[in-house]
C-alpha cells in the first residue's frame, strides 16, 4: 500500500509543477490579450487532439525520456551529469556511422548501431567520471564542457570526412542510412518509432533496477549519504564509474534512437537545437529522479512544446507562451531543489542529541 503511495508521489510531483506552470501561462496569455480557455484548448489539441498529434508528442518525448533517465540515474547516485547533450550527440554520430558502414543484414546493423550509440555515449560520460576519480576534476564542470568538444567534433565529422556529397544540399550531414536499418515506425504515416517503446521499457527497467537490485540499492544510498555508503562498504569510485557509464549510455541511446528512427542520418545541430538533453534534465528534476516520473514528465514537457506549436498555428498567441510556462516550471523546480537543500542544511543542525 505504502509502496504504491510512494510511487504515486513520484508521479504526482511533476503534475503539480505543470499545474502551477499552466496558471502562470494563463496570466501571460491574459496579458497579451488572448483567451485562456481557447489557447489552452488549442494547446491540448496540438499535443493530444488527434492521433497524429498524440504520436507526434510521443515521438518528441522519446529522446527526452531516455536522456532524462540517464540523468536520473546519475542524480540518484549523487553525481551531476550535465553532459547528456554531448553524450547524445556522440551516440547519434556513432550510430549513424555504424549504420552506414557496418556490414551485414539490416537488423544486425540496426542492433550494432544502437549498441554503438550506447557505448559511445557511455564512454564519453565515463571519461568525465574517470577524470573526477583520477584527478579530482569537478564532474559538473567537465560534463558541461565536454558537451562543446562532443558537438563540435561531431559537427566536424559530418562537415568534412563523412559529409554527404551525394545530394545537392550542401549541409553538414552524413549520408542517408539504408531503409533496412531504420527503426520501424509504429504506425503508418506517423512520426512515432520503435524508440518510444525502447524508452518506456528502459524506464520500467531502470525503476526495477533502482528498487530491487543490490547495485541499485548501493547507488541510492551513495546518492543519499556518501559517507553512510562508504561506511557500509560501497565503493564510491567504482560506483561513480558505473553510474556515469550507464547514465551516458542512456543519452547515447537517445541520440541513436533519433538518428535511426527519425532523421535517418546524422545532421549537425539537429539533436542539440531541439534541446532534448536539457528537457531531459528538466524532466528528471521535475520528477525528483524517479524513473517512471521522469518518463511522464518528459511526455508532459514534450506535449507543452508540441502544444505550443498548435497554439501558434491557430491563434494569435505567440509560441513564446510555452516558454513562459517552461520558465515557470524551471523556477518551480529550482525552488523545490532550493527547499530540499535548505531542509537538508536545517536537518544537519539537528544532528546532535534530541530531547
Amino acid at each position, binding site marked *: 500500500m*505504502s*509502496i504504491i503511495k*510512494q510511487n504515486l508521489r513520484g508521479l504526482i510531483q511533476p503534475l503539480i509543477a505543470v499545474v502551477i506552470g499552466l496558471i502562470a501561462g494563463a496570466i501571460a496569455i491574459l496579458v497579451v490579450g488572448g483567451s485562456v480557455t481557447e489557447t489552452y484548448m488549442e494547446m491540448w489539441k496540438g499535443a493530444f487532439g488527434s492521433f497524429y498529434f498524440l504520436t507526434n508528442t510521443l515521438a518528441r518525448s522519446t529522446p527526452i525520456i531516455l536522456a532524462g533517465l540517464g540523468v536520473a540515474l546519475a542524480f540518484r547516485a549523487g553525481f551531476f551529469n550535465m553532459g547528456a547533450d554531448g553524450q547524445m550527440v556522440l551516440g547519434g554520430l556513432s550510430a549513424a556511422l555504424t549504420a552506414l558502414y557496418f556490414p551485414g543484414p539490416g537488423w544486425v546493423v540496426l542492433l550494432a548501431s544502437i549498441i554503438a550509440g550506447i557505448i559511445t555515449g557511455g564512454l564519453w560520460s565515463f571519461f568525465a567520471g574517470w577524470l573526477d576519480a583520477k584527478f579530482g576534476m569537478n564532474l559538473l564542470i567537465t560534463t558541461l564542457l565536454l558537451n562543446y568538444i562532443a558537438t563540435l567534433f561531431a559537427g566536424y565529422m559530418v562537415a568534412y570526412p563523412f559529409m554527404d556529397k551525394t545530394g545537392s544540399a550542401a549541409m553538414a550531414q552524413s549520408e542517408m542510412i539504408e531503409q533496412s536499418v531504420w527503426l520501424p515506425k509504429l504506425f503508418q504515416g506517423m512520426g512515432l518509432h520503435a524508440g518510444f517503446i525502447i524508452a518506456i521499457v528502459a524506464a520500467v527497467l531502470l525503476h526495477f533496477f533502482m528498487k*530491487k*537490485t*543490490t*547495485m541499485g*540499492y*548501493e547507488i*541510492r*544510498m551513495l546518492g*543519499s*549519504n556518501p*559517507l*553512510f*555508503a*562508504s*561506511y*557500509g*562498504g*560501497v*565503493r564510491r569510485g567504482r560506483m561513480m564509474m558505473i553510474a556515469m557509464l550507464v547514465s551516458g549510455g542512456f543519452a547515447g541511446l537517445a541520440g541513436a534512437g533519433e538518428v535511426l528512427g527519425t532523421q535517418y542520418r546524422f545532421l549537425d545541430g539537429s539533436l542539440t537545437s531541439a534541446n532534448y538533453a536539457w528537457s531531459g534534465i528538466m524532466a528528471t528534476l521535475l520528477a525528483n529522479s524517479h524513473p517512471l516520473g521522469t518518463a511522464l514528465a518528459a511526455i508532459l514537457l514534450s506535449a507543452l512544446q508540441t502544444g505550443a506549436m498548435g497554439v501558434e498555428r491557430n491563434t494569435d498567441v505567440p509560441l513564446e507562451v510555452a516558454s513562459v510556462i517552461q520558465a515557470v516550471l524551471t523556477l518551480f523546480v529550482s525552488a523545490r531543489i532550493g527547499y530540499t537543500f535548505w531542509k*537538508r542544511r536545517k*536537518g*544537519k*543542525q*539537528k*544532528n*546532535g*542529541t*534530541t*530531547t
Partner: protein
Amino acid sequence: MLLQMENITKHYGNVTANQAVNFDLGEGEVHALVGENGAGKTTLMRILYGMEQPSSGSVKVKGKVVSFANPASAMASGIGMVHQHFMLFPSFTVAENIVIGREPTAGGVFDRKQAAALVEKLGQQYGMPVDPWAVVSECPMGMQQRVEILKVLYQGADIIILDEPTGALTPLEVKELLANIKSLALQGKSFIIITHKLHEVMEVADRITVLRDGRLTGTLAATDTDAEQLSRLMVGRELVSLEKQQVELGEAVLEVKGLGIRGPKGKGKALLKDIHLQVRGGEVVGIAGISGNGQSELIQAISGLRPVDDGTVQLAGVDIKGMAVRDIREQGLAHIPEDRYLWGAAKDATVLDNGLMGHHHTLQRKGLVKGKEARAKVSEWIRQFGIKAGSLDNKIQNLSGGNLQKLIAAREFAHDSHFIIAAEPTRGVDIGAMETIHTELIRKRDAGVGVLLVSSELTEILQLSDRIVVMYEGEIAGELSAKDATEEKISLLMSGGNRQA
C-alpha cells in the same frame, strides 16, 4: 514563587504532548526537568518561551497570569532560553553576538568599543569572563555556551532555560558550566535545565521534575532522591542492572601495532602516533578521551575508512591494512559509528534501506535484494529492540535519535562478528535506549565477542569496560584495568597530565 505553570495541557491533533503538568520555579533556584525522549519536556518549555500556546492551563510570572504570543514577549518578562544547538553567528565577535538586537550606539552607529566594554563588565559581574573581541567560530564549545548564557543575561533574563546544555562540552567544560550555574543562582538568577544526564542533575539541581509520556511523575528535592530513583520515574519500571559474567578471554580479535597516521599532507602534527592496542574475545576495551584526540581517526583506520601510514592492523589474525571496507566487514567487523547521521544512516532513505546496509550482500540472490527476507529481518530487530519506527517504509528522519541509534545498533549486532566497534553508542539517547544498547553490548561480550568501546562519557566507559585505554593528542596516554580505574585517574590522563604506562 517566581514562576508557576499550572495544569498545562497541550494537544497536537490527537497526540497529547503534555497532560495537566504543574511546574514551578523559585528565585535563585535550579530546577531540572528530566524525562525520556518524547516525554514532553521540550513542549513544556516551548510553551513557557512563547513558541507554542497551551491547549489549557495557565502560566504565572511573579503571581501574574501571562500569555506569551512569541519568544520576544517571554523575553520581555525576563525569560531567556539557550537552545541545545547554539544560535550564534560564527563569524561575528563575542561582543557582537551578545549585544545583538540591543546594540549600544554612538551617533546612530553601532559602537563596538562600548559593546565590548559592556560585555566585559557583564562577564565580570557574573563570574564568566570572556574575550569580547574573539570571533565565535574560534571559541571552544564551552566558551560558546558561556556566550549564549551571557546573551540571555544581557537581554535581562531572570529565568534561564537551558536545553541539554552539556551535550557538546568536554568534562572540564561541564564542570565549569555547572559551577557557573550555581554561582548565578546564588546571585538570584533562576534556572530550568532540560537534560538526560542524571549525575549532572544531582550535582547542580535543587529540585527535579520528572515527566513521562507527557505526564508529571514527580517533583523531588535533590536531597531526597538519587539517580536510580529518577531513572525509575523516567522509565516507569526498574532498570535492569548490568551484570557481566566471568568470561574466559579468547584469542586476540583485534591487534593494532605501531599504528600511525601522519598529519595533513605529511606535515603538521601526527593524527595518530604509535598506537598499540589489543582486544581479545570476551572483553570490552574502553577508549576514553576528550573527543578530537584521535579516537575518530583510530576507528576509521581500523574500519578501513581512512588510509594508514605506519604500523599494522590485524583482525582475527588477518592483516587488514589497505583492505576495502567491504572486505574488512566480511573479515568480521561490525561497527556502530560515532555519528549516526554523518556515518550511520541516510536520512531521506527508509527504515528498511537503512537497516539493509552491510547486509545487502548476504540478503541477495543474483544481484536482486531478497525483499521479503530483508523486511522480515528488519522487522525482527524492531520487535526485539522495541524500536518505534512506524512502518518499514517510513523515512529515517522521522525517527527519534534514540530509536535510530537502536536500529543502527541492531543492524550491527546482527552481523554476528567476532569484533565490534561501538563508538559513542548512546550519545544523546534516552535511558531506555541506553539500557537496551548496553545490555546487548555486554551480552555480546559474554558470548565471546571482542568489543572496542569508544566514548566521551566517562560513566559509560567505567560501567562497561574491562580495560580502559585513555587517548590524548593521538597517542595512548595510559591504560587502566576496570578495578583500578576511577573517574579522577581517567580525567587526569584525558587532560594530558601524569602519563603512565
